[in-house]
């Protein structure tokens, strides 16, 4: 019996090395292949082509070379949208991650009720992307909204934050920071992997808590910090819903919340300038890809890998 099994095994193995599982793989991957081709790759290339055309859905696209890209750099609203997005990304993502790390540290050090706190802090991450929360934000930071009611309690007269061009973007940043729960959970898992003996050894040597943080926690957690950073940056560049709902689709007041994706939507699906929208989309892709590449490159200098 055992012999037969062995034979069967070797026959199975040799058959596998000769042919592989090509046929089975083709079956199992068929949906994915079709999706990759029709839903992802073809549209990706099509939008690259469209970005060099003038196309309004009604007539066939006409080739205009790099004119869309040239127009972008002369378009004040496009430049504004780029500025708004960069501002949003580079302020709110670090703040969100700092908050996530701070709370993860506070929860990590032997605390009763960890699961309870984790749930409470995590809940906003699940809800933050919804229209309901964006609508709530519009009210909370409105002229007679919750924030101003609380401020009035202390005798302070607040602004209509969402309708003030200097503060509207800030309210969206607060919303992004509010969703720090997801990176916090990742940090919590990462902190668990740092052996306690490092801290014990450090405190025996008389290292202060602050030093332990900078010389043990940060280096050993750096792969996780890096991972969170890349993910949150990519996500923040594509933020759309909150700005759309809070500004009622305009990106106002005075384009102060005109996220890049919001402007793209306005051009593509508001004025049906599909060629221009495609050029904008490809520019976004290049920014996100470039930033991720820079991130990976820079990570050599600050991310510490144990192995």
């Amino acid at each position, binding site marked *: 019996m055992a012999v037969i099994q062995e034979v069967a095994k070797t026959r199975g193995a040799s058959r596998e090395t000769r042919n592989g599982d090509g046929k089975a793989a083709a079956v199992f991957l068929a949906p994915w292949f079709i*999706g990759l081709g029709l839903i992802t790759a073809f549209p990706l290339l099509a939008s690259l082509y469209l970005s060099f055309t003038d196309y309004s859905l009604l007539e066939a696209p006409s080739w205009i070379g790099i004119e869309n890209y040239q127009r972008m750099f002369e378009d004040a609203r496009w430049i504004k949208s780029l500025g708004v997005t960069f501002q949003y990304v580079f302020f709110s993502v670090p703040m969100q991650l700092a908050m996530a790390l701070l709370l993860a540290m506070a929860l990590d050090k032997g605390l009763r009720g960890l699961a309870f706190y984790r749930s409470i802090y995590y809940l906003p991450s699940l809800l933050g992307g919804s229209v309901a929360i964006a609508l709530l934000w519009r009210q909370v930071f409105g002229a007679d909204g919750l924030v101003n009611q609380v401020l009035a309690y202390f005798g302070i007269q607040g602004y209509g934050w969402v309708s003030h061009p200097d503060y509207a973007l800030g309210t969206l940043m607060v919303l992004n920071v509010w969703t720090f729960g997801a990176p916090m959970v990742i940090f919590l898992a990462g902190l668990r992997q740092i052996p306690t003996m490092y801290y014990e050894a450090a405190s025996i040597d008389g290292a202060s808590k602050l030093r332990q943080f900078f010389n043990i926690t940060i280096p050993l957690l750096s792969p996780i910090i890096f991972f969170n950073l890349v993910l949150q940056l990519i996500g923040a560049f594509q933020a759309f819903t909150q700005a759309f709902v809070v500004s009622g689709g305009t990106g106002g007041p005075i384009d102060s919340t005109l996220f890049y994706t919001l402007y793209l939507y306005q051009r593509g699906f508001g004025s049906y300038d599909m060629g221009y929208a495609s050029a904008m*989309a490809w520019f976004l892709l290049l920014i996100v890809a470039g930033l991720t590449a820079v991130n990976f490159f820079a990570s050599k200098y600050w991310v510490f890998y144990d192995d």
Partner: protein
Amino acid sequence: MTDTPVRPDAPTESTMTRVRPQRPLSEVAAEIPDVPRKRKAGPHLKRLLKHVLLIAFGLVMLYPLLWMLSSSFKPNELIFREPGLIPTALDFTNYTAGWNALLHPFSHYLLNSAIVVLGCVVGNLVSCSMAAYAFARLKFRGRPLWFAIMLMTIMLPIHVIIVPQYILFSSLEWINTFLPLIVPKLLATDAFFIFLMVQFFRGLPKELDEAARLDGCGHGRIFLRIMLPLSLPALATTAIFTFIWTWNDFFSQLIFLTRPDMYTVPIALRTFLDATSNSSWGPLFAMSIISLIPIFFVFLFGQKYLVKGIATTGIK
């Protein structure tokens, strides 16, 4: 992407492999016990103070949500005057008014959202698990390359493909149907979940499917009878995240659904702002609360899988 333990035979994930702790994060995350791993013998007072601070902070974070819940029971004029949480009177008129404020009763939009969510969940479960099985268990030519392409599609912003997708779907006359939202999920375009399930499948002992093969099982039966039943946690994580993402999704639903009778909950909620005057926050809050209830229940009952899922792939 931080998950797999290093394996020489695994397809390379190029640069991604460098972001890699010693142990699967998902395991660690799921293991985090409720009780402290090491109780500091610090003074009671300090610990108490910490709890007070953490609870206070949690309250500040959740305050807007609780306030919205309370406001949904308040008459309009009180919403703007009372920052407190306890409504002076329990009043359901906001709910009845909100339910009927739009062109269709709100149940219409809830049903539409439910159809889209159901389609997407089924689509992702079927197509992503199939693709994941191929990547995790089958040997075929070019596997590392295809795997790398799959990982790259995770990072692809939807905005880069939405315009041609719109053109494609409108030439199929699929605009104002749920097909543009559901069909891509049937074709495994949510590569996140392929990755998540590949990670999970790799952790299952290979001896099981080898034994099944010796007994004459084909890949179809190994997949259906062995891998899937053992992967319920991964399937649950996929279902839960698909549910939440689809329920919250705004961008693609805004683009593909423009006829009021096809509106889903997020799109319907947004039209509240146009349809009703700015002063009717009460009904708007009431419907917002209703739109958040399904997510809240998923959160309550699916927490374990959510935490595991985020730690595996870093999704929200």
